[in-house]
C-alpha cells in the first residue's frame, strides 16, 4: 500500500491538522500568536518526520469511524461497571483464562487499535501478538464461554475495523 505524498510541502495533511489542534488544546487558547506558532509547528514537524513513516492504511470511512468510537466509549462505561462488580464480588468465583483470538485483520495500525480496544473493554486485556500477526493472545478476567467471547470480539470490533480500513 504505497501512497505518494500529494504535495511535498504538506507530506501528512492529517497529522498537520492533528498537531495544530493538539497545540491549541494544550495551550487552551485561540490567541493569534498561538495560531501562528501552532501553524509553524504543524508545517515543520511533518516535514522533518515524514521520512520515518511506514505507510498504513488510512481511515476510509469517517462515519463508520465515528460510530466505532462512540460504540467503544459506550463499551468502556459498561466495562467499568462489570469490572467493578467482579472486583467487589468474591475473587474465589472468578475464572480467569488465556485465550487466543484468530485475526483476519492485517496491517499494524488496525491490529494496534483492535488490541487497544480489547484492553479497554469488558474484562479482557490483550497480552501478546503472534510473530506472524495472525493470533492475538488475550487474558480474560472472568471467562464464561470461550467461543462466544471470541466470536463477539471478532464481530463487534474486528468487523467494523475491517470496514473502516478496508483491509
Amino acid at each position, binding site marked *: 500500500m504505497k501512497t505518494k505524498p500529494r504535495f511535498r510541502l504538506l507530506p501528512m495533511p492529517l497529522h498537520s491538522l492533528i498537531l495544530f489542534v493538539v497545540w491549541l488544546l494544550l495551550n487552551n487558547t485561540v490567541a493569534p500568536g498561538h495560531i501562528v506558532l501552532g501553524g509553524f509547528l504543524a508545517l515543520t514537524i511533518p516535514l522533518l518526520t515524514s521520512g520515518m513513516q511506514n505507510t498504513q492504511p488510512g481511515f476510509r470511512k469517517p462515519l463508520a469511524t465515528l460510530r466505532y468510537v462512540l460504540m467503544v466509549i459506550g463499551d468502556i462505561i459498561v466495562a467499568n461497571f462489570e469490572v467493578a462488580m467482579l*472486583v467487589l464480588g468474591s*475473587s474465589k468465583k472468578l*475464572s480467569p483464562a488465556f485465550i487466543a483470538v484468530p485475526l483476519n485483520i492485517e496491517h499494524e495500525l488496525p491490529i494496534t487499535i483492535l*488490541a*487497544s480496544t480489547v484492553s*479497554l473493554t469488558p474484562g479482557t486485556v*490483550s*497480552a501478546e*501478538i503472534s510473530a506472524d500477526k495472525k*493470533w492475538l493472545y488475550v487474558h480474560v478476567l472472568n471467562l464464561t464461554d470461550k467461543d462466544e467471547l471470541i466470536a463477539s470480539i471478532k464481530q463487534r470490533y474486528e468487523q467494523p475495523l475491517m470496514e473502516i480500513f478496508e483491509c
Partner: protein
Amino acid sequence: MEFWIELVVSVFLVAGGIFVLIGSIGLAKLPDFYTRLHGPTKATTLGMGCLLIASMILATYQQGYLSVHELLITLFLLITAPVTAHMLAKTAMHHELEILDRTSGKELSKRARERMNP
C-alpha cells in the same frame, strides 16, 4: 457559585473517586498478576474521565470560557492505558510469573511468550 453547578461537579467528583478507588481495591485484592492488570486499566479510565469532566465544568464556569484541554488528558489516557497493560502482561509472561491455578488455557501463555501460533 450556583448550586446546580456545585451539585453536578460534586456528583462527577464522587463517581470518579469511587471508580478510581474500586480500581485500586482490585489491584490490592485480586489473586494474581494478570487479574490485577484488569483493575487499573479499566476502572481508572472511567474514574479519571469523571474527574476530568468535573474539572472541565468547574474551570469553564470560573474562567468564563470553554476549557477543553482536559479532553486531551482523556485522549492520552485512552491511548496509553492499553499500551501499558499490554507491555506489563508481556513482561509478566517473560518473567514466567505465577499464574493462578484455575486459569484455563494456561499453556497458551508459554506459546504467547515465544510469539508462536497456539
